[in-house]
C-alpha cells in the first residue's frame, strides 16, 4: 500500500462497496437498514442522488430485492445490501432474479446466525445459503473479498458478471471487513473495465427476451424501449411465456446452468501466497484469509513449507483448478468461521493423497493467526 500517494483514501469495507458500486455505474439502490451492512445503504443514499441515480429505502428486504429487479428490467444497474436475516428474506426474489435472468448485485455483510444471531459479530456461515438459499435448481455466482480494496474490486466485478451473464451476483463480506478501515486508492475511470448488458440488435418483432444463444446468454432490452416482452417467475419459453412443455422446461433450466458453467474459467478467482514449494496449504476466504496470510509468514519463520490459497470466487466452486493446486500439497487446512461448510466442498474435490483438515470458529470472534499457526503445528 502506497500511503504517500495523495489519492489514497481511508475507507471502511462497507464504504468501499459503495465506491465500487459507483465506479461500476450503479444507478439504483433499494435497501432496508440492518446491522452490519447499514453503512452501504447510508453511503448510497448520500452518493447516488449526486450522480442522478435513484435511492429508495423500502419497507423490508423482500421489497428491496423486488425493487432492484424491477429497476434492472427498466434498464438500471441495480444493487442492494443486507445481512443474515435480510438475506433470508431476500431469497424468494433472488430466485425470481435467477429465473428471469435479471442482472443485479446483492451484498451480504455476514453476521452470526441462525435467526437474529449475532448482529454485531463476524461469521462466514452464509456460504451455503448464498449457493442454495432459494428453492429450485440454478447456478449461483458468489464473490468474497478479504480487504477493503478487494471490497471495491469485487463489487465492480460483481456488476460486470451480473451484466454480462444476466444473473444476480452475491458479494459475501462480513462484519469485521465491513467495518474495518484501510487505505486504498480508487482507480481512475477506465482503469477497470466496466461492462453493461448486451442490448438486442434485432427488430422488435424478432426479439426474444430469453433467447437461447450459442453462449446461452440472451440480450436484454429494457422496459420502454419498444420490445414489450413478458417476464414471469413461471418456467417460460424463449419469449417469456409460461410453458409446461418438458423440452422447453429442460432447455430453460439448462440455460441457467450452462451460461455460467461454460464461462466458469473466467469467473474463478483464486489468490495464492507462497504456494510454490508448499507441503501444506491453508485454504480460506474473506477475513480469515488475512489471518492465514499472517499465519503462513509466522510458520515460514519456523521453516514450515506452507502456503495460502484464498478463494475470491466461492461459487461456482473451482473444482478442477483447486484439485490441481491441492495435488501439489500433502495437507490442506480449511479455515472458516462456521461449523464446517467450505470444508465439505474441499473434501469433495481434494485428490486422494491430500489430507483435508478442518479449522473452524463460530463464537463471533475473528480467527487469530496464532490459532491457525497452532493448527499448522498440530497437523504438520
Amino acid at each position, binding site marked *: 500500500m502506497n500511503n504517500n500517494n495523495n489519492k489514497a483514501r481511508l475507507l471502511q469495507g462497507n464504504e468501499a462497496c459503495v465506491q465500487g458500486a459507483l465506479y461500476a455505474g450503479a444507478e439504483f439502490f433499494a435497501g432496508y437498514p440492518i446491522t452490519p451492512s447499514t453503512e452501504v445503504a447510508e453511503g448510497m443514499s448520500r452518493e447516488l442522488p449526486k450522480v442522478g441515480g435513484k435511492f429508495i429505502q*423500502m419497507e423490508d428486504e423482500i421489497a428491496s430485492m423486488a425493487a432492484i429487479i424491477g429497476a434492472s428490467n427498466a434498464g438500471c444497474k441495480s444493487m442492494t445490501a443486507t445481512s443474515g436475516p435480510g438475506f433470508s428474506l431476500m431469497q424468494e426474489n433472488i430466485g425470481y432474479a435467477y429465473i428471469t435472468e435479471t442482472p443485479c448485485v446483492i451484498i451480504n455483510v455476514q453476521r452470526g446466525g441462525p435467526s437474529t444471531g449475532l448482529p454485531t459479530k463476524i461469521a462466514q456461515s452464509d456460504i451455503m445459503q448464498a449457493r442454495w438459499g432459494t428453492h429450485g435448481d440454478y447456478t449461483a455466482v458468489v464473490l468474497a473479498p478479504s480487504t477493503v480494496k478487494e471490497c471495491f474490486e469485487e463489487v465492480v466485478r460483481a456488476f460486470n458478471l451480473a451484466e454480462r451473464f444476466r444473473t444476480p451476483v452475491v458479494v459475501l463480506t462480513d462484519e469485521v471487513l465491513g467495518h474495518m478501515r484501510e487505505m486504498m486508492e480508487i482507480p481512475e475511470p477506465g482503469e477497470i473495465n466496466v461492462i453493461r448488458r448486451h442490448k438486442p440488435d434485432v427488430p422488435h418483432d424478432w426479439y426474444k427476451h430469453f433467447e437461447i444463444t450459442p453462449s446461452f446468454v440472451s440480450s436484454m432490452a429494457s422496459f420502454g424501449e419498444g420490445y414489450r416482452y413478458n417476464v414471469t417467475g413461471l418456467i417460460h419459453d424463449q419469449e417469456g411465456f409460461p410453458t409446461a412443455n418438458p423440452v422447453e422446461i429442460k432447455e430453460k433450466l439448462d440455460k441457467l446452468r450452462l451460461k455460467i458453467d461454460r464461462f466458469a474459467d473466467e469467473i474463478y478467482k483464486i489468490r495464492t501466497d507462497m504456494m510454490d514449494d508448499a507441503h501444506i496449504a491453508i485454504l480460506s476466504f474473506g477475513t480469515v484469509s488475512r489471518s492465514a496470510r499472517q499465519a503462513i509468514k509466522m510458520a515460514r519463520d519456523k521453516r514450515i513449507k506452507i502456503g495460502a490459497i484464498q478463494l475470491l470466487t466461492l461459487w461456482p466452486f473451482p473444482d478442477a483448478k483447486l484439485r490441481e493446486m491441492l495435488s501439489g500439497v500433502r495437507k490442506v487446512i480449511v479455515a472458516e468461521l462456521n461449523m464446517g461448510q467450505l470444508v465439505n466442498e474441499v473434501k469433495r474435490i481434494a485428490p486422494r493423497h491430500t489430507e483435508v483438515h478442518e479449522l473452524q470458529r463460530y463464537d463471533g470472534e475473528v480467527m487469530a493467526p496464532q490459532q491457525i499457526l497452532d493448527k499448522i503445528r498440530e497437523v504438520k
Partner: protein
Amino acid sequence: MDKIAHGSDVTHHYLRPKKKFPNVWCAGCGNGIVMGALIRSIDRLNLDKDKVVVVSGIGCSSRMPVYLDFNTLHTTHGRALAFATGVKVAKPDLKVIVITGDGDALAIGGNHFIHACRRNIDITTILINNKIYGMTGGQFAPTTPGGSFATTAPYGNYEKQFDAVKLAIGSGASYVSRGTVYHVQQLEKLIEGGLNKRGFSLVDVYSNCHTYYGRFNKEGDAVKMLEWFKKHAMPIEAARKLPPEKMVDKFVTGLIHETDATEFCQEYDMLLDRLGVKKEVAK
C-alpha cells in the same frame, strides 16, 4: 353491431397475438371484464403501448399481464407493488399499472400495499377483489366476510374483513375508488381517473368467483353474483345523502377519496433539483 366490432378491434390491438388463448380463467370470471375495461381506458387515453408496464403478483387475476401487449412483469406472490416501485422510480416516464388480487395485495402483500400508498408513488393499482383465494381452490382471504364458507373455513369464517378502500385512505393514497364488474362503464371511468392521477391510485373492483365463493356460499352462478353487485352497490354521491340504516346491506362505489398530495418521483426530482443534479433517464 358496428359498436361491438369496433370494441373487438380495440381489444385485439392490445392483446398479444402469439399468446395461446384461451386464458386460464373460468368461464364467467370477472377478470376478463376488468381486462376489457382496462384496455378501453388505456385506448381512450391513447397511451403509448411501449411506455405502459403492467406488473402483477400471483393468483388468478395476476395472470392478466401475460395476455396484454405491453411491457409485462408477472412477479412473486404479494410483491407486485414492490417490483412496480422499482420500475417506476427507475424510469418515471413509464406508466405503471399493477394488477393484483385481494389475497395478493392485502394478505401476503399487505405491507407493500400500505407503503406504496404512503409513498403516494404514481402506480395505478387495480385490485380484483373476489373475497377468496381462487387459484389455490377457495381458501378464505382477508376480505372474506365473517360467517362465509371457504375450504379453510369449513365451519364459517371467524375472522374480520379488510376494507381495501379504508386501508388505502388511511395509508396516504391520493386516489381511492371502488367499482364492480357489473358496473363496467363506471369501472372504465375509475381506471381512467386512476391512470390520469399523478400519485398512488387504487381501484378496488368487486368481482365474482362463482366457482368457489359463489358455490360455497350459495350465491349462485356468475350472472347471479353480478346481480348481487347491481343490487348492493351504492354510488358515493347517493350514499352521502343516505342515513346509515339505509346503507346496512350496501357498499359504496365510485371515486371515494382524492387528494393532491405530491407524488414520490416528483419529490425525488425536487431533491435532485436541490442538489443541482442533471436528471438522466437510465439508458
